[in-house]
């Protein structure tokens, strides 16, 4: 074998390897892949995972679902955006991400192109987060905090639907006394889940959150009253209520051991209608909240990161996950609130959830996002927790909240949001 021949063989092999590597590189880079974050709740994330195979088959886009508990999800999303990592293309979140809105990609172009959201509940798209006039999120799983009650117990006790908080407290007291022998308490709440405690203020507070000069501030008289009423209601809760997690508080209601529970309906709906998991099937309904304050709106939104390398693919996934067909399926299977009017008008669903829908829709209609940053909301929650455990009085709590809040900056999008929802002083 001549040297020339050997050289030729090496040269050809070299060329083949180079071409192979380039081709492989092209093929590899052509594989579209995105990652989407969800809260690990056993609902939103599980529903997303269920959709992945079908989406991949239809679009050829690979999707990774990254699920985290709520507090961690917030951190993961924010860190990814601030560091410009771009690990997550689609992010689940809400108003508490206001500090990082500028890192989200405007969706108006996609929304217009696909006529997106036209069959959603009226006004829902308008409640989505915006930054500098652009819409940056689209809704899924809208849920409004609600007060669920036992229709049978109310009826037996001769109590009508209470219209005010004082009437609700009176009802809780009456039911607590009446059914004491049966081990049924008047009311239950997940006080152990501290992050849920702001609801005690939101639904009973008839004031603003932001002053005319754009500072966080609670109107003391209104806020003190709201906290006092919540504390009063807890007098009719089971012993140990201060330590109950969301699941535990819901379980008390599902077992038929409480006449009322204040909770996210999507966390309990599926179980409450399932005879295998509930003793109260057909015996409960949702109470429209009295018309003070506002029901806490948990409207998950999906955002596209500015650092996403494939924003089109990210939008495809968002569209697929939030499509009307899935909304009904998710509602039935996981109890996830639907963003579409058709779900609530579906005859099949109306028959099954007729007791649930009127209250849910009434609360959803009035529900709002509080214009609070994560830090402001966390402080509010911890301070209410201090009141509940008896460390401080409601008066001191409101004073502490206002002192702390005065040191916090209110992000511009939240000021706009507060203006639009009447939560900013004029």
């Amino acid at each position, binding site marked *: 074998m001549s040297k020339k021949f050997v050289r030729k063989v090496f040269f050809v092999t070299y060329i083949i390897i180079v071409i192979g590597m380039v081709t492989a590189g092209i093929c590899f880079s052509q594989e579209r892949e995105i990652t989407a974050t969800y809260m690990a709740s056993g609902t939103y994330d599980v529903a997303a995972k269920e959709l992945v195979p079908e989406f991949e088959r239809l679009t050829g886009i690979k999707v990774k679902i990254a699920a985290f508990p709520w*507090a961690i999800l*917030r*951190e993961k999303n*924010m*860190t990814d955006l*601030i560091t410009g990592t771009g690990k997550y293309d689609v992010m689940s979140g809400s108003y508490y991400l206001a*500090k*990082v809105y*500028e890192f989200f990609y405007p969706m108006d172009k996609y929304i217009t192109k696909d006529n997106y959201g036209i069959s959603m509940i009226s006004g829902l798209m308008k409640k989505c987060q915006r930054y500098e006039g652009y819409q940056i999120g689209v809704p899924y799983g809208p849920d409004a905090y609600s007060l669920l009650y036992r229709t049978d117990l109310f009826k037996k006790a001769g109590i009508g639907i209470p219209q005010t908080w004082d009437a609700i407290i009176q009802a809780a007291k009456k039911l607590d006394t009446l059914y004491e022998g049966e081990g049924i308490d008047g009311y239950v709440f997940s*006080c*152990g889940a*501290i992050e849920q405690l702001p609801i005690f203020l939101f639904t009973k507070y008839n004031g603003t959150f932001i002053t005319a000069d754009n500072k966080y501030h609670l109107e003391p008289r209104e806020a003190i009253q709201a906290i006092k009423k919540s504390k009063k209601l807890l007098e009719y809760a089971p012993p*140990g209520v*201060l*330590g*109950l997690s969301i699941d*535990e508080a819901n379980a008390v209601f599902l077992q038929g051991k409480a006449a009322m529970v204040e909770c996210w309906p999507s966390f309990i709906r599926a179980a409450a209608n399932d005879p295998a998991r509930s003793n109260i099937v057909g015996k409960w309904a949702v109470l429209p909240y009295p018309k003070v304050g506002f029901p806490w709106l948990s409207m998950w939104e999906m955002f596209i990161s500015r650092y996403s390398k494939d924003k089109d693919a990210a939008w495809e996934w968002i569209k697929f996950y939030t499509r009307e067909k899935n909304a009904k399926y998710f509602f039935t299977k996981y109890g996830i609130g639907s963003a579409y009017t058709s779900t609530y008008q579906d005859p099949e669903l109306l028959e099954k959830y007729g007791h649930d829908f009127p209250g849910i829709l009434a609360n959803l209609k009035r529900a709002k996002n509080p214009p609070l*940053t*994560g*830090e402001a909301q*966390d402080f509010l929650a*911890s*301070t209410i*927790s*201090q009141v*509940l*455990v008896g*460390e*401080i009085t409601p008066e001191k709590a409101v004073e502490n909240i206002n002192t*702390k809040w005065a040191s916090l900056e209110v992000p511009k999008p939240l000021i706009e949001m507060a203006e639009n929802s009447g939560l900013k002083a004029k």
Partner: protein
Amino acid sequence: MKLSKFKQSENILFILFLLPAFFFIVIAQFYPLLYSFYISFTKWSLIKWKPIALVGLSNYQRVLQDSLFKHAFKISLIFACITTPVELVIGFLLAYMITGERKIYKITRTILVIPMTIAPVAVGTIWRMLLNTRAGLINYLLQKIGINGPNWLATPSTAFFSILIVDIWEWTPFAMIIFVAALSSIPVDLFSAAQIDGASRWQILRYITLPLIAPITVLIVLFRFIDSILVIDIIYTTTYGGPGFSTNVITFHIYKQALKYFNITYAAAASWILQIFCLLVAIVLLMCSGKLQEKI
């Protein structure tokens, strides 16, 4: 002449060998440390890009005026001041009972060390389940003997007590294992001589054992005190700082400021205050240890 040249080249070689490690330590440890020191004097937002502006001591002033910081610092101090002596005493007693070469001692030591080998996050999670008011094992067992268990993690006092228990359970083995090593290193002759002189068990403990292990004891105090001040994992997994702010220890407070709210300059200043405090504690304790060693 030749010898000194050889020594010189040998020194250069040593330095050359040390350089990679030196640079690694400088980059991996000192650079972030110095950088955090620098940003503690600046106004800088991770979120909105603006040039970093020097603001002198204003972050430190903010931290020291913050009632939450002061509260968290106080909680951490109380936590460390309780856990350290308790771990020390129980650790010593256990070590005193199981120091020796007998097989049963070795097995007991191995079993007792287990809590220390579990990841702190797992320890927190396990204890959170054990302490659950309605479904936890502890309240179940208490109920079996006719006691209504408290709401462990739901009231400030019981929640604080709970995290003390968790820390003591996890870290007493650390004190124990060091004490075992210290006790084993005392020459047996000393004990034999004391026994011949008619010293009682208590006198041997009081006048021989305790003085000889005093320097090591100071070191255990140093490790455990600083470690207790820096506790975060079990707080994160059991109480998340609550209820209210009752278990909001200093490191958890700093963590939230830095990584949840992205108040990075505040967090840097708070970390440096904590760092300086820990450094002072370490200096005082090391001086104590040195003096005790001299006495021995």
